[in-house]
């Protein structure tokens, strides 16, 4: 695939690009690059596991490619990809749950001393995970979750745009969630 092709494709609308893919399948790569963050984000929101989300996102694009001849232009490409990715992600979560139910016996209530020790360990682990966060993510998260400040108050306190604060808190929560995955 030549660079000139890629440059030309990058200037096309989604609808135009879909038409090009019918003649040259390499152009589909541009569609992937254009929407991969969105499709990955949509998958991650549902499956909450980056590795699984990547698999789902890849599968979503492959399914989209195969279904491209049936794609109707009255729908936006992004909407169409979103629906494919979300359905695949929901299926992946269902399969994961079924697998877990089949193979892992449901634990009975743990003795209270054991649970208490578990909570202490969980607290320590959470503290470590918080400390590992970059400063620019940790501070807004603490202000929100521990001090209970609103997004707007945090934005004022840190002299940041409101959306930046929200994005940082979103990323901080995700980073913590990934870190704590082993404890779930």
């Amino acid at each position, binding site marked *: 695939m030549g660079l000139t092709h890629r440059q030309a494709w990058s200037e096309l609308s989604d609808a135009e690009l879909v038409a090009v893919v019918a003649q040259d399948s390499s152009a589909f*790569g541009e569609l992937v690059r254009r929407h991969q*963050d*969105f499709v990955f984000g949509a998958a991650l929101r549902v499956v909450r596991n980056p590795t699984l989300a990547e698999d789902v996102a890849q599968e979503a694009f492959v399914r989209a490619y195969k279904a491209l001849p049936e794609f109707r232009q009255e729908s936006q490409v992004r909407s169409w990809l979103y629906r494919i990715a979300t359905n695949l992600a929901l299926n992946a979560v269902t399969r994961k749950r079924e697998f877990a139910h089949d193979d892992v016996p449901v634990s009975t209530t743990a003795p209270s001393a054991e649970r208490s020790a578990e909570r202490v360990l969980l607290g320590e682990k959470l503290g470590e995970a918080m400390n590992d966060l970059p400063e620019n993510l940790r501070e807004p998260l603490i202000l929100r979750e521990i001090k209970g400040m609103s997004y707007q108050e945090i934005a004022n306190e840190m002299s940041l745009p409101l959306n930046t604060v929200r994005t940082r808190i979103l990323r901080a929560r995700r980073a913590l969630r990934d870190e704590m995955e082993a404890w779930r």
Partner: protein
Amino acid sequence: MRSCGITDERLFDFADGIQDEALEQHVAGCDECQAFLADLWIGEAPHDLSAPVMRIVRFDEFLVAAAKLGVDVAGAMGRAVIQMGPSADPS
């Protein structure tokens, strides 16, 4: 606030994974909400997915084309592995 009436706050919670079936259905058909989420998720993909996706696409196309020509793909691949050895570089 978008013309659909969904607030940023609600979409942030949605992006964060909070279950909201009504919003899920709404977002699936709302360009404005999807545009907001697309902005929010910029840089989310851990790396470029186009290469692995195109590898799968091309391999599938190869299989379809080979099948149309009546080629015994599985047999041919098996024979190649036997002749070249599983670790041989086919290039």
